[in-house]
């Protein structure tokens, strides 16, 4: 039963009176793409923050490969193979794209402080191996042409892909992607879908938050739906799509939006 890559049990976090994540349990099988969907404010990003260690749960457990991680700081979780991207892009703006990816290899580079500072043989070998690997990853996400550009100067869609590249540099056992297609045009979204398809083929395990439903339905093996912090449905994409509660949750927000004067 504990063959799951990630399993959340009764995960809850309250901000004052609001339970942003309320008794959520889910499990992600290795090698699958698992979708986490729900209307705005449903608690998806909060789940990511709990799993990656930016927030501490009020109650419940988080297990990565059967090991409880909810008490560990974010950098230790990264050491166990957890990597993520951010809904609001977080770039190292002054670094080149290449160096941004190399930063993701921080934990893989074993040369000690003295060896790195004095640029001894071991550091140089490791650094050049890291650089070669960083180029491969940039190739994979389609950014090798931009390797020498400042991360902060890249177009929005490229920054999103660079965040994925930086996370891949960690060689993650679980990759959390928070709205990777947000703000992308249709052709960029198509490229992203191809990329995630390739990652899936290579055996990566991904927990994906995304608003583009076609995208989610095509990519995901399993989907969990949140609304107001609670899990309202889960299952295979076809089943989730026709679930009345899910339809109501989405329809509800659309009605609310049109009442508020939105689209």
């Amino acid at each position: 039963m504990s063959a799951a890559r990630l399993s959340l049990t009764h995960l809850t976090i309250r901000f004052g009176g609001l339970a942003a994540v309320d008794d959520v349990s889910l499990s992600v099988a290795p090698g699958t793409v698992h979708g986490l969907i729900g209307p705005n404010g449903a608690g998806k990003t909060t789940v990511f923050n709990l799993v990656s260690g930016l927030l501490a749960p009020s109650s419940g457990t988080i297990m990565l490969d059967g090991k409880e991680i909810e008490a560990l700081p974010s950098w230790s979780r990264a050491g166990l193979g957890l990597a993520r991207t951010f809904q609001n892009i977080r770039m190292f703006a002054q670094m080149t794209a290449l160096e941004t990816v190399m930063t993701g290899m921080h934990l893989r580079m074993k040369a000690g402080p003295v060896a790195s500072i004095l640029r001894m043989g071991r550091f140089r070998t490791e650094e050049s191996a890291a650089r070669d690997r960083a180029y491969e990853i940039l190739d994979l996400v389609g950014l090798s042409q931009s390797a020498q550009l400042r991360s902060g100067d890249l177009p929005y869609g490229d920054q999103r892909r660079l965040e994925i590249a930086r996370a891949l540099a960690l060689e993650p056992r679980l990759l959390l992607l928070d709205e990777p297609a947000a703000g992308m045009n249709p052709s960029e979204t198509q490229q992203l879908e191809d990329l995630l398809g390739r990652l899936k083929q290579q055996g990566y395990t991904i927990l994906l938050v995304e608003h583009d439903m076609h995208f989610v339905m095509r990519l995901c093996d399993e989907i969990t739906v949140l609304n107001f912090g609670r899990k309202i449905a889960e299952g295979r994409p076809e089943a989730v799509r026709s679930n009345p509660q899910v339809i109501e949750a989405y329809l509800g927000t659309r009605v609310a939006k049109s009442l508020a004067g939105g689209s």
Partner: protein
Amino acid sequence: MPEFVLPEVIDDFLFTYQNLVYSLGIHGLLALSMYVVLAVGQLSLGQAAFMGLGAYASALLTLKLGWSLPAALAGAMLIPAAAALIIGSPTLRLSGVYLALATIGLGEVQRLAFVNSDFTGGALGLSGIPTKAGLVSIYGSLLVALVLLVLVARSKIGRAMEAMREDELAAGALGINLPAYKLGALVASAMLAGLAGGLNAHVSSFISPNDYGFDAAVTILSFALLGGLGSPFAPILGAVILTLLPEVLRSLANYRGLVSGSIIVIAVMFMPRGLLIWRMGRIGVSSRRPS
């Protein structure tokens, strides 16, 4: 520490501008000490306090125990390092302004302790400190510190530091141990500031508790904010400008506090990357794609 015999022209120049030349080197070290903390995205207002600890430690070690200059300077680095460990360990686990607040506290507590202790000469301070430091010890220290910091900045440690300063959450999520890096930076910065204090005590022969107060902390901060953080050269440039400015414009000398305060405001508002915006490369030309 032995001093070289200098040619006469330089000797004359030094005689006239000796204090200024010493100050430039010592302020350069202080600017580097500030840089190390800011480089991991933290704010310390304790650099003057660390400097004062170093000054008092080395002065007492030479005056009371007769230690040699190198030994006293080692003490001037280790004692502030211990203080940095003590205040850094609890505060650096939290993010935000805790370090800044704790270091302001350190400065005040320390000033009161020096003022009220006979052992440290009370409010009058310590005098008769042997003037054993000079050009070689000051500029030698500055050079070694600068070379080391350039090497650190170019290494993967420098890359991790830059990542933290640009985006702490993202850096932590990549596995960078934030408290360890922050504590390491604070300890290194305390050692540099302590060294500057030790050297200062041993060129001026007289130190008093009020030399190391909040004003001094703000001046040290303004060195780094004016220069920038793109490379370790930047804060030194800031220190040189802010040390020479009052000399060139004599009328400014009485408004040092006003000048450094204004510099901070201007730097933060209009040039957040400082004067020297050049960012030192890390993987350099070899970063071209291997063919």
